């Protein structure tokens, strides 16, 4: 049977609050609790029922490789970015046209969404805002992008269109 060791106080710094707390718990005769710090999952599972586990180490699961989130995502991003060059050029030289306006109203919001998604991955990752926070933010971003797509479509159909807006605002 494996020997179960409690964490040695000598191994930890003597001045941390957690050490003082842990030693207070250990030293207190009236507190029926044991402080264990397990390094391995098997040690944690060996624990008998009278010891309450307070800190379980969960092994990190590497996500399965998926081309949709990997190289396909990269390809899609670059194709969109490249297509923006002739799109803006056509819109600048030909003026308003339903096809260029419609395409702009789809490609530019998706391009912006991909950029925002990269920023969320970099700065608002689960390690920083928690799993729930990251999921909330990601889904809010998707909702906002859908709203933007709807707004651009409405503007292109029931108003003057994106290119005309820029032209009129520039010449106002």
């Amino acid at each position, binding site marked *: 049977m494996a020997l179960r060791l409690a964490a040695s106080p000598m191994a930890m710094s003597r001045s941390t609050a957690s050490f003082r707390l842990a030693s*207070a718990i250990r*030293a207190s005769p009236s*507190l029926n609790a044991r402080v264990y710090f397990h390094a391995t999952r098997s040690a944690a599972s060996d624990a008998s029922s009278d010891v309450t586990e307070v800190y379980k180490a969960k092994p990190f699961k590497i996500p399965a490789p998926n081309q949709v989130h990997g190289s396909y995502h990269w390809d899609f991003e670059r194709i969109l*970015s490249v297509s923006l060059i002739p799109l803006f050029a056509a819109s600048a030289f030909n003026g308003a046209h339903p096809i260029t306006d419609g395409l702009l109203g789809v490609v530019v919001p998706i391009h912006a969404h991909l*950029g925002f998604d990269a920023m969320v991955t970099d700065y608002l990752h689960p390690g920083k805002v928690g799993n729930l926070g990251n999921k909330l933010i990601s889904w809010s971003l998707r909702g906002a992008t859908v*709203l933007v797509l709807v*707004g*651009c479509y409405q503007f292109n159909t029931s*108003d003057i269109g994106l290119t005309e807006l820029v032209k009129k605002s520039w010449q*106002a």
Partner: protein
Amino acid sequence: MFAPRVAASLRTAGRIQTAAVAKNAFVRARVMAPVGTRILSTSQSNQKELTVAPLVEQRKNRPTSPHLTIYQPQLTWYMSMFHRATGGALAVGLYGGAIAYAVGPLVGLGFDAATITSAIATLPVAAKVAGKFIVAYPFTYHAFNGVRHLIWDTASKLTLKGVYSTGYTVLGLSTVSALALAFI
């Protein structure tokens, strides 16, 4: 472990220090109780409070090492930073405008092309030119630097010389085109 006298003094010292540290009333009650009294044993959630919660609180107060403030300013990361910043700013403008147009009728916000253009027309000429430059510069910078990124994606210009020469080209082109757009 330790000698009984040392253990007793450690116990009192630990108890006083721990009581000072423990903001939790539950912990204070347990730790400041007289020696020898029997208190109900703790449940798992309370033990988690006692041992893990203080560690989590400590992590929130720890400072992070300086990074952006101490790294030598270089064209490479400054331009990368501005590429992301200009992209984000333009996207915020697009999202704000499009969402305002989409939900405007629902909240009574008079937001359409006519009101925007007439509002712009009321501004003085200097404000209009300045405004156009402020809108055009992020756009031209992001566009030309985007082309630079696409050039890198073809595995070209990925040398120090290439990065710096394309970088200065982007800076020059974006400034000139933004000025040109501002005065149209």
